[in-house]
């Protein structure tokens, strides 16, 4: 992690550099897998305690081996492909959904100069890449050749596209304040204070729409257990199912990183090293997502759309306009 990651991309191509790139990506993947295991365990434990239950406590001390057992179970399961399925699309859909979630980590600024790609349109890259997941969800729902996945996939498409707009609009306020779309640049612009305070309206719009982008509880219509079985991944089993879950949990982490970077000063913080601060802030976001799941019920489909178009989007746009006006009025505010 403490290598000069960016240097590799700009350095002239050698086989050794390529090997190093693979090693770094592998390290990141392992970190994410460990995080996903921890998040699975943490989610079940936290939800359990919210419901006055202890949560998993049989596998290993305090149940810490529960996610390991779950993963092993998933890997040993038969990989069922429905007879009606469009096999090629069915197989590739979870990959399409997961890979973008992993790609977002390319622009995560862990510390000054510790990031994979110092892209000057990092925020744009992040939102553009996450948009690809929608295709994975829709194709997963469609290719299953079954009615509930189709419903889930369609819901997913409608929801993710609707909430992409307020998400990007709320991010624009931050980009406007920082004067750059570079992730590291946005963090550096928060040297004095976090963007959370001046961008509180933007943060509200951002947090809600990012929760919708994650397909989690108040907005888990694409999965909606009590309505459409399991939505777009109803027909999936075994390792492909694990891939869907992996994508979902990786997105919580990625969106946590985005949230910490845009609104909570990224790596800035006293005493501890920068990457640890970013990790702590991202984990607080993950905890918030789990807490939300334990608190709020699922929204209705029509209120979901009304909320996105009639409340969140105007809120995000108002925030953007106010930010622009203030920035124009007080030149050199930052």
């Amino acid at each position, binding site marked *: 992690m403490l290598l000069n990651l960016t240097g590799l991309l700009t350095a002239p191509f050698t086989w050794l550099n390529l090997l190093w790139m693979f090693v770094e990506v592998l390290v990141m993947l392992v970190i994410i897998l460990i995080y996903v295991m921890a998040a699975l365990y943490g989610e079940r434990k936290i939800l*359990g305690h919210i419901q006055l239950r202890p949560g998993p406590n049989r596998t290993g001390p305090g149940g810490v081996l529960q996610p390991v057992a779950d993963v092993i179970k998933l890997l040993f399961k038969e990989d069922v492909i429905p007879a009606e399925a469009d096999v090629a699309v069915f197989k590739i859909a979870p990959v399409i959904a997961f890979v973008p979630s992993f790609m977002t980590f390319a622009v995560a600024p862990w510390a000054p100069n510790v990031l994979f790609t110092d892209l000057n349109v990092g925020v744009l890259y992040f939102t553009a890449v996450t948009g690809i997941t929608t295709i994975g969800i829709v194709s997963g729902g469609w290719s299953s050749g079954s009615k509930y996945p189709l419903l889930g996939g369609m819901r997913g498409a409608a929801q993710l596209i609707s909430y992409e707009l307020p998400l990007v609009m709320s991010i624009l306020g931050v980009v406007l304040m920082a004067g750059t779309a570079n992730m590291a640049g946005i963090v550096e612009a928060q040297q004095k204070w976090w963007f959370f305070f001046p961008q509180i309206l933007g943060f509200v719009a951002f947090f809600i729409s990012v929760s919708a982008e994650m397909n989690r509880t108040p907005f888990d219509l694409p999965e909606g257990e009590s309505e459409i079985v399991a939505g777009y991944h109803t027909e999936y089993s075994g390792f492909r199912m694990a891939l869907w879950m992996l994508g979902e949990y990786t997105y919580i982490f990625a969106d946590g990183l985005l949230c910490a970077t845009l609104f909570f000063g990224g790596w800035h913080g006293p005493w501890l090293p920068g990457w640890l601060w970013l990790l702590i802030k991202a984990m607080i976001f993950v905890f918030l997502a789990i807490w939300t799941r334990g*608190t709020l019920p699922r929204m209705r489909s029509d209120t979901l759309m009304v909320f996105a178009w009639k409340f969140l989007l105007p809120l995000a746009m108002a925030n953007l306009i106010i930010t622009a006006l203030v920035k124009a009025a007080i030149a050199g505010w930052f």
Partner: protein
Amino acid sequence: MFRWAKGYAYTGKRLFEKTVTIQYPQQKPKIPEGWRGRHYFYPDRCTACDACARVCPTEVITVVSHRDPETKKKILDDYTIEFERCILCGYCEEACPVDAIKMGDVYELASYAREQEFMTQEKMLPPGYSTDVVVHGQGEAYRGGDYRTKPEKKVNH
């Protein structure tokens, strides 16, 4: 508009409260008074009046007795319950004038075979009682009947 905050406060508070789960096989639940579990039978109290057997809706109770030829009093010879068909209604307990049959606190009622559900006096002894009080009399009915080996025969259709 801020109802969601109330919800978050509620769940956040629950997060730090003590869980109510009992780790069942290791930890046993506290059985409240008046629980209708499996019966306890007090052979020393029973007067063999047959009230429980008559009131039983599923007719699973068998009271075997004989009369003392001198005092003309009934003497208990045996007492069994075909527990597999018992519906735990508690009528027997209510009907008993001397509190010889009581609904107990035993709730783990599963067994591996039907024969194990055939409750003899030994199986229904209340805690603290020794098997000395169990009566296996030598009355006429007791000697003649084969109810202990073939409980199915008692079913009335």
